C-alpha cells in the first residue's frame, strides 16, 4: 500500500484500461490447484496463483497440543501461516512475525465459521500454510489451499471457502492485485466467501476507498470468489477420480 517515502511510483493502468501484466480490471491471474500432494498429511493442497506458490496441509481431528487449549464441546481450529525465508525479495527471517500471526488468526476464524467443529469435541484440527513464493495475495492463496486441504482431509464443512483480494489502482477498482499493484496501489481488500450463503467470513481493508468504491469492490470480489470456487471443486473432483480410495470430503 502506497509506500511512503519510496522511490518512484509506476503507471499501473494504461490508456486502454489494461494492467501492467495485460489483464483487465476484473480479470484473475492464472490459478492452478492440486489436491493431495502430501501423502503424510490427512489432507493437502498446492496452489499456484500468478507468481504465488503456496502449500497447505491439514492434520486432524487429533489430540490438542498444548493441552489447555482443548474445548469440551468442539474441535479447536489452529492455523499457522508461515512464509519461507526465500519466498520474498528481501530474505525474511525464519519464524512467525506479527503479520503472520495476525493472518493465522483471521484465517483460523474464517474456517471456524464454516467447519462443523462440534462434531469433534476435545480435538484439534491443525491447518498449516506455507508460502513458498510470494507475489501479493498470499493470504487468499493460502486460504484457498487450506480449504481444499480441509476437504481433502474429509473435514465436514458448510462449504469451501474461495478467497480473493480486490484493490484500487490508479483510482480504479481491480481484481486480484499482483505485487507491483499492491505496493503502489491505493487500497487492498482481501475477502473470503461462503458461496452457499453469499456471506464473507474474512474481510480486511487497508488504504483509501469511498463508499461507492467499496460497494464496487465487494461485488467484484464476490464474483471472483465464485470463479475460484469452481476451480476448487474441479481440483477436488480430479483428486477423487485419480485417488478413489482417499477419504471423501463433505
Amino acid at each position, binding site marked *: *500500500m502506497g*509506500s*511512503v*517515502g*519510496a522511490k518512484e511510483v509506476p503507471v499501473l493502468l494504461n490508456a486502454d484500461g489494461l494492467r501492467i501484466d495485460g489483464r483487465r480490471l476484473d480479470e484473475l491471474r492464472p490459478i492452478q490447484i492440486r489436491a493431495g500432494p502430501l501423502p503424510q498429511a490427512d489432507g493437502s493442497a498446492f496452489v499456484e496463483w500468478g507468481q504465488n506458490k503456496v502449500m497447505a496441509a491439514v492434520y486432524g481431528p487429533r489430540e490438542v497440543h498444548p493441552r489447555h487449549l482443548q474445548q*469440551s464441546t468442539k474441535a479447536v481450529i489452529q492455523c499457522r501461516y508461515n512464509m519461507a525465508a526465500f519466498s520474498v525479495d*528481501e530474505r525474511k527471517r525464519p519464524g512467525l512475525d*506479527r*503479520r503472520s*500471526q*495476525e493472518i*493465522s*488468526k*483471521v484465517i483460523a*476464524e474464517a474456517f*471456524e*465459521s464454516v467447519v462443523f467443529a462440534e462434531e469433534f469435541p476435545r480435538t484439534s484440527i491443525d491447518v498449516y500454510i506455507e508460502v513458498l513464493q510470494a507475489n501479493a495475495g498470499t493470504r487468499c492463496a493460502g486460504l484457498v489451499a487450506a480449504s481444499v486441504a480441509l476437504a481433502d482431509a474429509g473435514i465436514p464443512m458448510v462449504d469451501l471457502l474461495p478467497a480473493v483480494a480486490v484493490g484500487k489502482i490508479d483510482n480504479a477498482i481491480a481484481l486480484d492485485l499482483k505485487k507491483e499493484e499492491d505496493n503502489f496501489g491505493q487500497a487492498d*481488500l482481501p475477502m473470503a466467501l*461462503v458461496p452457499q*450463503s*453469499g*456471506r*464473507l*467470513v*474474512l*474481510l*480486511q*481493508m*487497508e*488504504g*483509501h*476507498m*469511498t*463508499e461507492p468504491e*467499496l*460497494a464496487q469492490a*465487494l*461485488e467484484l470480489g*464476490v464474483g471472483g470468489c465464485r470463479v475460484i470456487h469452481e476451480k476448487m471443486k474441479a481440483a477436488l473432483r480430479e483428486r477423487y477420480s485419480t485417488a478413489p480410495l482417499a477419504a471423501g470430503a463433505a
Partner: protein
Amino acid sequence: MSEEVTAEILQTHILDLAAEGRRLDGRGPDDYRPVTIDPGFVTTADGSALVNLGQTKVLAGIKLEPGKPFPDTPNAGVLTTNAELIPLSSPTFEPGPPQPGAIEVSRVVDRAIRAAETIDLTKLCVTPGEKTWVCYVDVHVLGHDGNLIDASLLAAVSALSSATVPAKRFEVADADYPLEVLHRPIESTFVRLGDTIVVDPTFDEERAAQGRLTVATDESGRIVAMQKGLVGAFSPDDVKSVVRRAFVHGDRLRAQIRGGRR
C-alpha cells in the same frame, strides 16, 4: 465449569435481548458508550492520552527518538505501534508473549494510523537515508470491557495530537515543537448478535458475538481500514450498512478528540 455455564447463560440472554433490539446495559444497537479523553496524562511521554470507553480504559503514550530510516523508504520516518494487553486489565489475560489478540489490536490500529496518513512520515525525516525520528505508539490497555480496537485508536490518535517532538533534548533542533497531525482516523466496531448488528460491544457482547466488523474512517469521507474478526459472517449488504453507521460515529468522536477532554 460453573464459569462456563454462567457464560453460556449470559450469551443466550444477550442474544435474546438483541432479537428485541435491546442490550444488557440498556443501550440501543447504535448507542456508543460514553467516552472521556484525558490528553497529557503521562508527562514522561512525548504525548499521551487516557481514554475511558465505558469501563474500558486505555492509555497511549508516544515516544520519539532519533534513528535510521528503513533502506527502502529513505525519506520517511519510522512509526511503530505496539498494544500491550497486560494481565492487569482482565481476568482473561495471562502473562507471557503477546497473544494473537494483542497483535491484532496493534496491527489494526497501526493500519488505520498509517492509511489515514495521521502524521506525515516524510516530515519525520531529518537526513534522508541517514537520520529520522522513530515514533513509538505504545498502547497500554488498563481495563478491558470490550471494544479494545476503538478505544486504542482513540487513545493513540489523541496521544499523537498532544505530542511534542523532543528536538532540543536530542540536539536535533534548537527547540521542541508540536508533532503535526494531518488526519484523525476513527475506528468503529460492530458485532453481530443474531440478526442485529450493534456498535461498541462490551466484553460480554464480544463473547456472545457471531462476527465482529471494524471500520476506520477519516474526516474526508474515506474508509481507510477494515477488519472482520471472530467467528461469524457478514453479507456485502451488512458491510455497506456498517460502513454507513461507522461514518456517523467517526465524525462524532473526531469532534470530541479535537475538543480534547469531554
